[in-house]
């Protein structure tokens, strides 16, 4: 075995230069590996977000509340099939009607999903049903709503990701096709004028309607000619039709006027869109 002379220690500058080179090379490899893993993981996660929404978003539960609003709540399913956890995910939704008018928006934040985990993010959207609200037609007209969804997250500490997409949602109105028709008025022996009024609509909302629907017949001048009350205990998908008699105030002519409806439930009360009475 040959004797080997120990090599002298390299000079300081040489060692410093090589140490810096090695550190930068190791860091480069680590960063590239991490970036590759994060990219792959992020793509899997983004696919899961979109897949989950297209499968299940739209399973809203609806509820009328006391302050003339319709509450829509849903569980937004998220599946993180990536290899990195998701921290601080925030999701925002905006609902627009077919004319593009914003009806409501909502958001949720701070969602944590472990790698390979699933989460159901709860959402609650409140839609105002007041007379001035553009959402009033939701009560009486089925329509195709657009739901815009944004998801924001800083993924793997390095990558801010924003996913946005639009999804259509078929809205079923609770009073779809609301119509009030009037038969020929008749006169009672005491001189009171009566008129039979038939109310019809279809309940297309996934909601049981209980309470009563009050209709007020107003003349063209704005004075109230008569009042009708229709009791309700309806279930989703049921066609409603009922005839009631309105006894008109003496001298008041509702022809050319309006029908104003108010639905009164156990814990809510709100106005329906006004209907015109033909002259």
């Amino acid at each position, binding site marked *: 075995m040959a004797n080997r002379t120990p090599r002298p220690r390299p000079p300081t500058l040489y060692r410093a*230069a090589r140490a810096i080179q090695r550190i930068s090379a190791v860091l480069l490899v680590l960063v590239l590996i991490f970036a590759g893993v994060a990219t792959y993981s992020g793509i899997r996660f983004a696919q899961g977000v*979109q897949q989950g929404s297209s499968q299940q978003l739209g399973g809203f539960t609806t509820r009328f509340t006391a302050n003339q609003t319709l509450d829509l709540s849903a569980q937004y399913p998220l599946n993180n099939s990536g290899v990195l956890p998701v921290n601080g995910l925030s999701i925002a939704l905006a609902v627009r009607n077919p004319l593009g008018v914003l009806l409501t928006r909502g958001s949720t934040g701070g969602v944590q999903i472990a790698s390979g985990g699933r989460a159901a993010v709860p959402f609650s959207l409140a839609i105002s049903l007041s007379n001035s609200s553009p959402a009033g037609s939701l009560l009486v007209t089925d329509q195709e709503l657009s739901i815009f969804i944004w998801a924001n997250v800083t993924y793997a500490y390095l990558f801010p990701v924003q996913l946005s*997409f639009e999804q259509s949602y078929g809205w079923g109105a609770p009073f779809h096709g609301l119509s009030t028709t009037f038969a020929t008025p008749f006169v009672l022996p005491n001189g009171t004028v009566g008129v039979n009024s038939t109310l019809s609509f279809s309940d297309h909302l996934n909601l049981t309607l209980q309470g009563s629907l009050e209709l007020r017949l107003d003349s063209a001048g704005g004075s109230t000619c008569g009042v009708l009350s229709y009791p309700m205990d309806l279930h989703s998908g049921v066609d409603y039709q009922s005839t009631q008699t309105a006894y008109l105030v003496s001298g008041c002519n509702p022809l050319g006027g309006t029908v104003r409806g108010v639905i009164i439930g156990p814990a809510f009360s709100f106005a329906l869109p006004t209907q015109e009475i033909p002259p």
Partner: protein
Amino acid sequence: MTDSGSTPDGPLPAQIPSLPRRIARGAAVAIGVAVGSGFIPYYLLTHFKPASVGFGVAATLPLLLGIAIGLIEGAATTLRPTRLYGPLSILSGLVGIGYLYVIFQNSTIHVSVTSGGLSIGFGLLILLLILITGLAMVAGVVTLAEDLAHPGERLPFDYPAR
């Protein structure tokens, strides 16, 4: 063209490869770096463009800068036994930082997905790469300082005799 090595205790033998071998090695490095930092980004940018992937930089820019970095790295590898190695390493680092800075300014990718879009920002990653490239450039500065202070001192360690 090459410097001779020496130590305070006496000359330490250095076995510097012949110029053709160094040119071959430099060419391999140049091709590897040009492919990694030029052609692969160029391919990805042109390949994904039809798939509605938006990136704010023309695909030819990373290609040209990647080739430039490859050529400088190749030259540095070939000329490693000389005093030009330090300046070429610094130049390579500077061009690399410029390359990364161009990407940093456009460090958000927009991808069109069904009925929407996906935006991914990778600015922090590019900043990390800039820091790492800066670190490599510092190594070039230290090597240059060593070459100026003690010419040829590193050669027996870079090219130890067997």
